[in-house]
């Protein structure tokens, strides 16, 4: 490999260090108008009347629109099209937009928005999972789902659960709660639209231009061909910019109404209202185990606080039950889950989408079972690890799997086994697994998930692909793949990405799919181009194409440019295309769409902490993270993703929380929503393990999300190691530790966490046959 695997600079880094990268809010066109949204101050209310006159009278105001101008509903999932860009009948959370103003500058727009008079009839807000499960005081938040304010339920059962539990020597139940948190990208969401000659163009800091394209088309009533959505360089996403948003719809509509470019940039507080962050999840798990640590059966229940709208919630719900089996071979497994609506900012996907919560519960639950049985927690895990090339009880296909190796490596590097034992010092270990892209698209169809087009013109190579670089480095991956095949440097490749007007579709930067899927599409297109050029070069050199050595800017003895020109002389204009669609992986049952992936990445973490028994304050000393990357296309980028994932995992474990005062976000600012500063961040040692996935591009797998997952339980496990108390609820704030220590002193259960799991009337579970007998002896 000439460029794959080399620590090369990212292709977009130079512009970023010189300040010349143009993010959405940096864009401005002559005559641009500025838009401000008016948002609801009530968590739940009916809109009785709106008076726009005073706002329209403000000098400098060009247009004011309301829900009447945007009556069509949308939503990211086909099954929950439940949002209006601007609500005209009912608001469902504090911050729900009801009107939009376009004016000559942002100050005028803000002033005018404030002058809009809205008469509300305030309703009784639903603020917790418990309230959402019980009979509502007022009407349910939405007119679908139910009973009460339940949005969606799931119930699946694989294998013979009862028999599994009957076989167990030990059965244990635990309850956990994972607090909600948010993405907090450094860049506030921003979008700007123009409407020229009947064509609408939207530049937006979105991770999913294709889905925004679809939604804009639906809401504006324009064919997709009349719309171009450009994902601008991104100031951070982490899942927070994967839904179509009100401000995007508003600028499109306002551009159409006024004929002027219209821009809207959210304030930080509005970003907290737009949210789509990590769901708070209450969890109950019951596991049966043999005396030797082998799992016989597991029953997992979840309840998700979804906030006010559907968003990705149905997928999130299924994800809370899907990936328990991709690390552990569970012979019989039942999952029951419910997502409820509450009058809080809508939750959605955040790095790890629906899986950090159950991972946290599962890993700690296994620690506790090991403790009960007097077994080593690492050994208990090893006894149950899935093996490569197997199928899980819920029909997930496992191919490459480096669990054993990452475990060995992380334990060795951290000296976990021989750790120093002292009160106040602790180490924790956990493992996890994540998808390399969802096996199914959001809109079920048989189209490719990623498409790529390469144009060769007089020796210049331009790659067109819908993939969206959100800072994770996907442009660099695509350029590297193409450069590798064509014997060039990544910096030689011109990229047109994230632009639905020019590039063929890629579904977007979510579910860790880009390296795997866009990488494979680019590989496909690049190989076709390489073959074309090699064929002509071979002819001119009098050898066979297979003998042509490609690299260092050369095709055999010809320079790349010479070879490319020969090819163009022969074939005329040249472009090649490539595409990727994952194999059909869904199991034979309803609900099997969430969980399958062409490959799974694996991560293992060890966290070393000091925790002061007098204060409960935690100091993280070091984190070791071993990750099964399949193969790293760019080790610098991969390491960056690992470190960033560890950082975010530590944040979620220690402090990040989207907390509420009843239904009002308690801390919608960067000061009050706590995220780690450089001083709080420990050293991270990254260990990369290459398992060479058979289907990944050059064997590569994902790294964008996986490394966050084991960090959270590892922190809690380390607290237990240090003080002998369990904190079954994140974030693990010092007050929780002190409460657990108090309980311990009083002789009560040495823990802090939820006491019970509510009685939820889950539907009768779908009974699914196992794909095979257990892979390992029980």
């Amino acid at each position, binding site marked *: 490999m000439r460029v794959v695997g080399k620590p090369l600079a990212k292709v977009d880094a130079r512009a970023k260090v010189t300040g010349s990268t143009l993010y959405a809010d940096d864009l401005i066109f002559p005559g641009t108008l500025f838009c401000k949204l008016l948002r609801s101050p009530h968590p739940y209310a009916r809109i009785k009347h709106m008076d726009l006159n005073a706002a329209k009278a403000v000098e400098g105001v060009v247009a004011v629109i309301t829900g009447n101008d945007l009556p069509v509903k949308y939503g990211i999932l086909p099954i929950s099209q439940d949002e209006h860009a601007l609500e005209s009948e009912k608001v469902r959370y504090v911050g729900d937009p009801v009107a939009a103003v376009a004016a000559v500058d942002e100050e005028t727009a803000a002033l005018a928005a404030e002058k809009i008079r809205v008469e509300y009839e305030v309703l009784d807000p639903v603020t917790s999972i418990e309230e959402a499960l019980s009979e509502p005081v007022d009407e349910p938040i939405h007119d679908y789902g139910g009973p009460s304010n339940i949005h969606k339920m799931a119930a699946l059962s694989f294998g013979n659960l009862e028999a599994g539990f009957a076989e167990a020597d030990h059965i244990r139940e635990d309850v956990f709660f994972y607090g909600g948190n948010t993405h907090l990208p450094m860049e506030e969401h921003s979008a700007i639209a123009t409407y020229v000659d009947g064509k609408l163009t939207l530049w937006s800091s979105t991770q999913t231009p294709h889905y925004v394209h679809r939604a804009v088309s639906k809401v504006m009533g324009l064919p997709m061909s009349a719309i171009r959505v450009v994902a601008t360089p991104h100031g951070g996403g982490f899942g927070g910019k994967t839904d179509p948003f009100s401000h995007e719809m508003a600028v499109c509509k306002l551009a159409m109404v006024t004929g002027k470019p219209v821009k809207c940039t959210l304030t930080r507080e509005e970003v907290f209202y737009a949210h789509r962050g990590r769901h708070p999840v209450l969890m109950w798990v019951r596991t049966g185990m043999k005396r030797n640590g082998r799992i016989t059966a597991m029953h997992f229940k979840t309840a998700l606080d979804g906030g006010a709208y559907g968003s990705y919630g149905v997928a999130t719900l299924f994800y809370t039950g899907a990936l328990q089996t991709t690390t552990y071979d569970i012979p019989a497994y039942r999952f029951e889950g419910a997502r409820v609506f509450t009058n809080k900012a809508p939750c959605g996907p955040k790095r790890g989408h629906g899986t950090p919560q159950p991972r946290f519960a599962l890993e700690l639950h296994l620690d506790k079972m090991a403790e009960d049985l007097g077994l080593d927690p690492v050994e208990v895990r090893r006894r149950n690890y899935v093996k490569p090339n197997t199928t899980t009880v819920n029909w997930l296909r496992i191919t490459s799997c480096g669990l054993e190796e990452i475990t060995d490596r992380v334990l060795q590097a951290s000296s976990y086994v021989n750790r120093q034992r002292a009160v106040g010092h602790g180490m924790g270990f956990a493992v996890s697994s994540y998808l390399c892209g969802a096996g199914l698209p959001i809109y079920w169809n048989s189209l490719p998930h990623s498409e790529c087009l390469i144009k060769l013109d007089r020796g210049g190579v331009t790659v067109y692909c819908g993939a969206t670089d959100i800072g994770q480095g996907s442009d660099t991956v695509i350029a590297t793949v193409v450069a590798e095949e064509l014997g060039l440097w990544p910096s030689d490749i011109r990229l047109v990405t994230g632009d639905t007007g020019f590039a063929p579709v890629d579904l977007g930067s979510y579910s860790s799919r880009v390296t795997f899927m866009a990488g494979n599409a680019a590989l496909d297109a690049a190989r076709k181009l390489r073959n074309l050029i090699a064929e002509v070069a071979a002819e001119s050199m009098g050898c066979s194409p297979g003998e042509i050595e490609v690299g260092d800017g050369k095709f055999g003895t010809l320079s790349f440019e010479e070879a490319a020109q020969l090819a163009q002389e022969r074939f005329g204009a040249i472009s090649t295309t490539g595409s990727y669609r994952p194999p059909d992986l869904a199991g034979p049952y309803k609900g099997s769409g969430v969980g399958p992936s062409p490959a799974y990445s694996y991560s293992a973490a060890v966290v070393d902490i000091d925790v002061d028994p007098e*204060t409960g304050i935690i100091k993280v000393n070091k984190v070791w993270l071993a990750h099964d990357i399949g193969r790293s296309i760019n080790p610098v980028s991969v390491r960056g993703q690992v470190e960033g994932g560890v950082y975010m995992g530590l944040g979620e474990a220690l402090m990040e929380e989207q907390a509420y005062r009843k239904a*009002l976000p308690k801390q919608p600012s960067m*000061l*009050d929503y706590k995220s780690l500063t450089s001083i*709080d961040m420990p050293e991270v040692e990254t260990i990369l393990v290459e398992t060479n996935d058979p289907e990944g591009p050059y064997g590569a797998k994902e790294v964008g999300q996986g490394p966050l997952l084991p960090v959270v339980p590892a922190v809690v496990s380390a607290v237990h190691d240090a003080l002998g108390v369990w904190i079954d609820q994140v974030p693990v704030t010092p007050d929780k530790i002190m409460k657990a220590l108090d309980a311990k002193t009083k002789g009560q259960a040495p823990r802090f966490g939820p006491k019970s799991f509510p009685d939820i009337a889950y539907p009768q579970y779908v009974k699914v046959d196992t794909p095979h007998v257990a892979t390992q002896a029980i």
Partner: protein
Amino acid sequence: MLRLRPFRYLRPMGAEEAAAMVAEFDGEAMLVAGGTDLVPKLKRRQMEPSILVGISHLEELRSLRSTPEGGMEIGAAITLAEVARDPALSAQYPGYAQAASLVSTPPLRNLGTIGGNLMVDTRCNYYDMTYEWRQAAGFCLKKDGDACRVAPARPHCWAVSSSDTAPVAIALDATAVLAGPEGRREVPVESLYQDDGIHYTTKQPYEVVTSLHFPPRAGWRSSYVKLRRRGSIDFPIGGAAVALAIEGDRIIDSKIVLSGVASHPVVAVGAASYLVGHSLDPELVAEVADHAAKPVKPLDNADLAYTWRKRMVKWLVTQAIYEAGK
């Protein structure tokens, strides 16, 4: 982008003129030094002055020197960063330099002044919010509303004094020079504060703090220990300043002042007196810390559980005493 509402900015030639300007536009004008406290609050519309009177450019507010008696004079417009890195200050008043170095973040400390830090507005997480948020939550007594959201029983504001440097200045018996339109007066820093989250200072709104005077403190040790969630950015949710005069291994004088626990820096008079005449043995320190912490009653208007903040006061005092006694 969150922006400021319009105001006029005046640039006086001296402290007296500044005071006169504020006095003239009574209620309409406010002083601004670094603006690191004021500007965010204006953006959130917690105050709505139509005139700002700038003072950070005034050379007379920028002294930093030893006094003939052996103390120090620090101009009010000296920045927190300048205080933190001044060797003479750190040598004689390590607690003060330490407190300045722990305020917020490095870029903010390059702008924020010590005068502004003394006068920093009291804080409450029902109040330090945007206009829109406060509207959604219901406005409170301190701005636009008529009841306290934290403790509605009484028409009193419990917003928390959150200055890091004020408690140390008090522990070191510093005085402040105040300039009014008519002239200057010098008062103990301790007397600048009162138990009212709204009218937290006894100073007239137009009076300009021109400088702080620290008495000689050779033979004294001082410390400041701050409680906050992160290693940077955050305001104190508790803090303890301790000054000890030590002879041999005996304490001959002491002062303990708490921050972040009430609407004013709290001087633990009784507790500090216990130390006098003794050396620092753990039992005594624990007793003193206990005594200092007992009257403190944090409320649910700052970060983290107030019950935990309450129990942390004792720990803070203990740490600060040992730190000073080192």
